[in-house]
């Protein structure tokens, strides 16, 4: 059915602009140049979904990890629960939440947040565990309290691992947000859904999603380089 719609739209356009490839649902640079503006809103919806979900997910997972760091027995149960959330397919998740949260941004964001939890939690815990015992002993010997130890020694040393988790969570969320339209969250997926056979459309919408993932990845990586200068010095 979408196919026919595209074909019709293509024919109309061909009469107007003389471009033939739209009728064949092809890859048409002219069409893209004419229509790029229709992707602006979905793109920013996609950015919004990703950034908000990852931010909330990071806040929750980071807090959980700090709690579990002091009480190690919590690591198993938290991993189990967030792991189960992570396993439920996103398509299903977007629907399972709808009877509770309705159709819209909230549902999309709640689901996306759930997917970031396991990734970030695991990386924060791994990072904190990997802090050398020598460094902690030295800090204790200098008279640091638990709190100071965490803030001045453990967290800075765990930062690369924590940010690695943030990067994975971000790229994963960009991908999953492509289905957020099923929950009424909009995003680039809605454009893909509208004309899945139209090559130009898929190239632009899909390309933007891939670029977004890459751009956010580079931003976090740059941030990591800036806040951990000692890593470069050692390398």
């Amino acid at each position, binding site marked *: 059915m979408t196919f026919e719609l595209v074909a019709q739209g293509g024919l109309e356009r061909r009469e107007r602009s003389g471009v033939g490839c739209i009728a064949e649902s092809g890859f048409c640079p002219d069409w893209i140049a004419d229509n790029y503006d229709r992707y602006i809103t979905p793109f920013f919806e996609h950015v919004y979904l990703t950034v908000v979900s990852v931010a909330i997910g990071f806040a929750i997972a980071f807090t959980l990890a700090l709690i579990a760091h002091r009480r190690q027995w919590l690591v198993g149960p938290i991993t189990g629960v967030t792991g189960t959330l992570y396993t439920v397919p996103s398509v*299903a998740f977007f629907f399972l939440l709808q009877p509770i949260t309705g159709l819209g941004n909230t549902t999309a964001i709640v689901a996306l947040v759930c997917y970031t939890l396991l990734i970030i939690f695991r990386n924060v815990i791994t990072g904190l565990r990997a802090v050398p015992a020598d460094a902690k002993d030295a800090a204790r010997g200098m008279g640091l309290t638990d709190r100071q130890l965490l803030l001045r020694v453990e967290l800075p040393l765990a930062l690369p691992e924590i940010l690695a988790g943030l990067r994975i969570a971000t790229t994963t969320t960009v991908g999953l947000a492509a289905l957020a339209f099923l929950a009424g969250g909009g995003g680039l997926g809605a454009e893909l859904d509208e004309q*899945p056979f139209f090559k130009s459309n898929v190239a632009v919408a899909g390309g933007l999603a891939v670029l977004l993932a890459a751009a956010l990845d580079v931003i976090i990586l740059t941030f990591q380089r800036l806040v951990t200068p000692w890593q470069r010095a050692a390398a």
Partner: protein
Amino acid sequence: MAEGRGVTAPLAFLGQFGDAVEFIFKERDSVSGGVQVGGLAELGDFALIHLLVSLVAMVVACAVSVPIGLYLGHKGRGEFLAISVSNVGRAVPAVILLFFFIAFVGNGFKNVAVVLVLLAIPPILTNTYVGVRQVDRELVDAARGMGMSGAQIVRRVRLPLAMPTIFAGIRTSAVSVLATATIGPYANLQTLGEPILSPQIYDFSGQLGAAIVVALITLAADAGIGLAQRAVTPRGLKLAEGPGRRPRLALPTRRREAAT
């Protein structure tokens, strides 16, 4: 809670969920009428296609990535390839990859299967490589000292010891393959996503019902492979973990991205 239309009494209190569960078990008229939809028979057909395409993809992906991972890991070569394949896999999300395929390559069972294979390879390949590399150097030297050939070392020392890691990769892949197969209907493959993506026929209860089935199947597959993972873990490794250490859940502590 009042939204559940035509719900049988025992399920009524569940509201929309009850309606969805009823959709799974009992046929009903489609939204536009005229056609019977839902019920175990129709969902069973969808589930069959869903599982079939996922299984084919997983078998092919394992057949491709495990030998390559074993070889590269054993020779200690191609670390860059084995590790970066999973980073590339993450950069192009599954959904986007499927849409690219639909628009530029084609539809149907074969194309969906190819997408799922591409999706399943990175975690298995990376985990096999990492698992094989992790094997204690001394064990390999001891095996060589006993006169084992390269192939024997791979088969009898490296592979068994890498099994838990390999299975962790298979588990990750299986979960994402089952999840991605859900959007198969875009490529004219009637998987369990069919009711989800056609609300004009199946209504919300159909969408929710299929979502429940997809979630259950994925969780079951995850748990099943988790059990298999324990079964293939050599006893020596289980002993090394020891009962005295921090209790391990059936879920492995790490599930994805062994390389990071």
